[in-house]
């Protein structure tokens, strides 16, 4: 479904991505890990059109994504979240979701007022457990709730591929747990790529893992395979391979 071939990105001579090949089949939950500067976020940026690759191809469901505008890629069914969650604080939770859900409507039809809650929005509210906060302004949400709202906004768009950039960063243990459950639920009927540092989280929820290092794919495989791989341990050199990967910068 998603196919990256020999993708290069160079920023002022720095090779952020140096020939990445990545294939994610439909329905898979893929984790993307790697030390800081490995190119994880850049990879997401390339898929979503924020960064244009210097060379290589990105194909999604038969479409070439390179050179397409961001909002057009979204319209093909690719949604993403950001490391620092951005929700619209002036709008209520339900308005945030509704805005996300309405993106396929023509602009003129938006001039009508929202009546009630659409099916997609109700479903997103239920899945993220934000029903009770629906009419509250998004500005009052806690960090964890914001992340869920962002994921909810993605779900309301009914994308085919979700890209989540560090969804549990900065979350408490409890919130991590709930996010993990949410993720498992979502993965049941979506293709998902998650960028994550947290090894504990990875163990619990990941199936397939791709390790990036210095802009290249280092290893790909199951969590056990990957964490046992000597090259991966070397990348995280000087730290214990078990919990060191979980350290955030």
């Amino acid at each position, binding site marked *: 479904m998603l196919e990256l071939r020999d993708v290069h990105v160079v920023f002022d001579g720095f090779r952020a991505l140096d020939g990445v090949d990545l294939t994610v089949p439909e329905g898979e939950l893929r984790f993307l890990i790697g030390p800081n500067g490995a190119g994880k976020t850049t990879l997401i940026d390339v898929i*979503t059109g924020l960064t244009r690759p210097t060379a290589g191809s990105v194909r999604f469901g038969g479409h070439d994504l390179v050179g397409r*505008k*961001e*909002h057009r890629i*979204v*319209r093909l069914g690719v*949604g*993403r979240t*950001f490391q620092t969650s*951005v929700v*619209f*604080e*002036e*709008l209520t939770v339900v*308005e945030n979701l*509704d*805005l*996300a859900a*309405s*993106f*396929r*409507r023509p*602009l003129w039809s*938006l*001039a*009508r*007022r*929202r009546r009630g809650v659409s099916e997609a929005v109700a479903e997103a509210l239920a899945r993220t457990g934000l029903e009770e906060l629906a009419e509250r302004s998004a500005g009052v949400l806690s960090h964890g709730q914001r992340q869920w709202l962002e994921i909810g*906004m993605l779900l309301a*768009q009914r994308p085919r591929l979700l890209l989540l950039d560090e969804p549990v960063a900065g979350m408490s243990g409890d919130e991590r747990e709930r996010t993990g459950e949410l993720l498992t639920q979502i993965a049941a009927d979506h293709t998902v790529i998650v960028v994550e540092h947290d090894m504990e989280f990875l163990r619990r929820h990941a199936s397939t893992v791709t390790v990036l290092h210095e802009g290249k794919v280092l290893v790909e495989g199951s969590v056990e395979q990957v964490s046992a791989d000597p090259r991966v341990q070397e990348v995280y050199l000087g730290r214990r391979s078990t919990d060191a990967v979980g350290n955030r910068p």
Partner: protein
Amino acid sequence: MIRRHLPFATVAVIALVAAPLLLEPFRLGLLAKYLCYAIVALGIGLAWGQGGMLTLGQGVFFGLGGYSMAMYLKLAEGGGLPDFMVWSGVEELPALWVPFANPVFALGMAVLGPVALALVLGTLVFRQRVRGAYFAILTQALAAAMVILLVGQQGLTGGTNGMTNFFELFGQDLAEDSTQRGLYLVVAGVLGVLYLATRQLVQSRYGRLLVAVRDGEDRVRFLGYDPALVKTVTFAASAGMAGLAGALFVPVVGIISPALLGVVPSLELVVAVAVGGRHALAGAVLGAVVMGYAKTALSEQFAGGWLYLQGALFILVMTLAPKGVVGLAGRLRRARTT
């Protein structure tokens, strides 16, 4: 439902019934002028308050509307060439002027001209992701350029003096009190209709989208919307309002000149919107009317002092009540209820 419409209905009754009965013609004429400014302010409230586009050049659109109307009025008088053309030695009516003899064309151009210019400008500027201060400076430069253009084309535009000496509109004597009262009612009516339409827009999904574009343009892009399109359309709507206001302004006030649409008047309106409260449409309208009155009243008392007072007021509002008078009122009300 009734409660929601009560404030608007009250203001509408005062504006449409009480004001024409109670105000002497001179004061009513002044109010009509402020209401014209309020229409521009409504557009600024939409573009800036809701959409985050700080436009410092609404005078350009106001001027396009005003000049379109003025050209029609000049030609409607009959009697050959407009006076100022004779004075500048123009012997034949310029081709640009010919279609403006038709009132429908002139009124249409007063609105569609600004809309078209804003669409072109918006497409060029917002596609390139020019925003914030850069957009503000660009619009201000446009206002300055417009003045230079108008002044330079003496034979076509009347130069620095602009155009004045209008006598009749659609066969009505513009000097008559009844004509002026009728004009006032038209201006008030147009403002009312535009206010309701804009409020409807702000409360719709489009309005939510506009606020989202203001607060997180990049995020909106990743929701699958094109922020450039949203901004361009909104900017064009505000330009159309300014153009219509300009067209109404000319018969009400009886003059249009570069001094009425350059950098300073454009800025004054932005200040008025800020003082009134840019996040509420009512604040924008209120700001324009109150600042208009204050300017006249204070200039009558001590000329020259107004500029300092206006500047001081702007700084005061920006530092103490960034949401303007309307925001302040809302805060007081909340403080009382809790």
